[in-house]
């Protein structure tokens, strides 16, 4: 390995990996307030730690070989040697629960005065390890520890971090869990903020139609709204309209068909009590449209097969779960139901 130092790192070019030096420099970057992000960098083309200045601050890149060398160094030299070992351990392996416990115990001794430093560290770790369960667990604990001091700025910073991690790792379960907990429980999550977030998620999903977690998030935020039935009804209508636009443009996604089940089933309950007519009409339209044509290309045939699968499952699901009185009401065309049934039989 080669490790080249420059800029504020200091000194020399080494023909072999100088791991103690690498350890020290990685630790320094963790504690340098100018560093906004540290990330694994397999594409740098070197085996050196890189440093780039962006408009948000310094971004440090760690090649995986360097990361492994430092981890083995900690392993061989003794991980309990100093607090730095804990910091680096978590940066490179955020799933190490005992290291989080050490940090937590340290913070409890310091009191809430140490929270902002801890939040900065956690941001660095989660940006580098966006789907770390232990990292998100520690984040949740830190939020509880600092609950009384959490401002609206904290709330928005948390939302931004969660969304960044959801973007870096699609369907990132624990990042979405954290985001939902913010919108369910924070005093800064007003109905107005929730409705705005749901709209933001409709735009998010328009670019990411397979993001089932985002759609599930919207369903849960909707359930936490405390506003009037009229406002909720309008929100549901907006959700339905955005979904229909998306599904006409992007076919064959399990996530969107799943969300259509939710939208449809929402309208079965008070005060909507609506027939599934329009949803079934859409289902039939897609069943017909997804019948393959002999002239279809392989790609189109494959897309149609997927769309047909989800459309037929959707219709079957509606037939099995819709309250019988809505399925047989005058607002549900029996010919529509029969057409779908014969398609499903075929």
């Amino acid at each position, binding site marked *: 390995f080669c490790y080249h130092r420059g800029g504020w790192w200091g000194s020399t070019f080494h023909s072999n990996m100088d791991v103690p030096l690498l350890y020290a420099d990685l630790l320094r970057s963790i504690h340098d307030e100018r560093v906004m992000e540290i990330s694994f960098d397999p594409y740098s083309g070197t085996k050196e730690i890189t440093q780039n200045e962006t408009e948000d601050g310094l971004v440090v890149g760690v090649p995986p070989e360097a990361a492994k060398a430092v981890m083995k160094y900690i392993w061989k030299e003794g991980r309990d040697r100093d607090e730095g070992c804990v910091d680096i351990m978590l940066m490179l392996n955020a799933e*190490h629960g005992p290291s989080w416990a050490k940090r937590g115990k340290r913070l409890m001794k310091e009191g809430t005065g140490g929270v902002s430093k801890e939040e900065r560290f956690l941001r660095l770790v989660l940006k580098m390890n966006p789907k770390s369960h232990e990292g998100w667990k520690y984040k949740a604990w830190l939020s509880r520890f600092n609950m009384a001091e959490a401002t609206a700025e904290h709330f928005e910073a948390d939302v931004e971090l969660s969304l960044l991690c959801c973007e870096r790792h699609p369907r990132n379960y624990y990042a979405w869990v954290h985001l939902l907990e913010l919108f369910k429980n924070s005093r800064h999550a007003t109905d107005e903020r929730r409705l705005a977030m749901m709209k933001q998620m409709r735009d998010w999903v328009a670019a990411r139609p397979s*993001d089932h977690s985002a759609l599930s998030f919207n369903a849960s935020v909707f359930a936490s709204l405390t506003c009037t039935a009229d406002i909720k009804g309008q929100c549901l209508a907006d959700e339905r309209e955005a979904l229909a636009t998306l599904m006409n443009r992007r076919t064959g996604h399990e996530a969107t068909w799943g969300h259509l089940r939710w939208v449809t089933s929402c309208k079965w309950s008070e005060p909507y009590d609506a027939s599934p007519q329009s949803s079934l009409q859409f289902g039939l339209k897609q069943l017909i449209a997804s019948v393959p044509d002999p002239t279809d290309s392989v790609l189109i045939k494959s897309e149609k097969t997927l769309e047909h699968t989800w459309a037929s499952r959707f219709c079957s699901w509606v*037939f*099995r779960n819709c309250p019988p009185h809505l399925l047989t009401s005058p607002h549900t065309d029996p010919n529509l139901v029969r057409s779908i049934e014969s398609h499903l039989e075929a």
Partner: protein
Amino acid sequence: MAFDKDLHVKYIESLDRQTDTFEYWVTEHIRISGAYWGLSGLFLLGREDVMDKEGIVTHVKKCQHESGGFGGNVGHDPHMLYTLSAVQILVLYDSMEGVDVDGIVNYIKGNQLPDGSFQGDEWGEVDHRFTYCAFNCLTLLGRLSDIDIESTVQYVKKTLNWDGGFGVAPGHESHSAYIFCCVGTLAIAERLDEINADKLAWWLCERQVPDGGLNGRPEKKSDVCYSWWVISAMAMLGRLHWIDKASLISFILKCQDTQGGIGDKPGNMADVFHTFFGLAGLSLLGFENDGVPLNPIEPIFAMPPAVLDRIGVKQRTAPQRTTVPKGTPGCL
């Protein structure tokens, strides 16, 4: 790839000898769960004799904390996950003597919260895995009645989602692993009537994807561990026949590592976690190797039925349904 039982035995046995590897070190804190997965895998293969029983039992007992709970390794803080794994290992080996059982019970009781949920440890994470750990562990100890069962059942019901599934906590996205935990909890409490088994089983059988494997939630790739979480839940619900068994068996077999063990996906390296859950899935699916089935596994407790009989754990019956509903995805 054909099933090679001896290769898998060799793989699991070798794990305990690799004590000077980097991988052994970074998993030090979860060693006890690794031991449970490895040992349970050997029980399924009928080769639990290859492990050093005395050594394992002695080591596990040293992991008990003064609080009564068990840590992931000697000197590590106690946690519900490792407490369950420890008790499972000791029960498998019929070696509970000298263990502070009251301590375990008090530790678990101390982690039950007023709303019926369970935290994992002093750091306060609430998660259905710990609910399941509590119910499983206390049943193995014959002490389930020491906790407030009803409040937990009510908490689990609050987690029920519109799609029939369960997430990590109320309101969260349905996930196969948490469904296993909630269904397992309700099965242990004999309260499976609280859920719509058809609706949930429908969601579960939609986890089967074109490669025959199972995923954890919509739009995710298949992973061998869901061969356990999903089908054990379906077995508990009495609807295992809703899954295309042949395709799933074929998928699991493709996930075998040529050097032994089973990985999460075809072509990936084996690890002990996926090895156990792959074998458990094969057992539950009735897979036979040259006409010989794997040893059986009970879906609720993830333990051999003979071991459960030995300690007097009552069999729970699944809600029955004999016909497959029209339009059910995934079934043959």
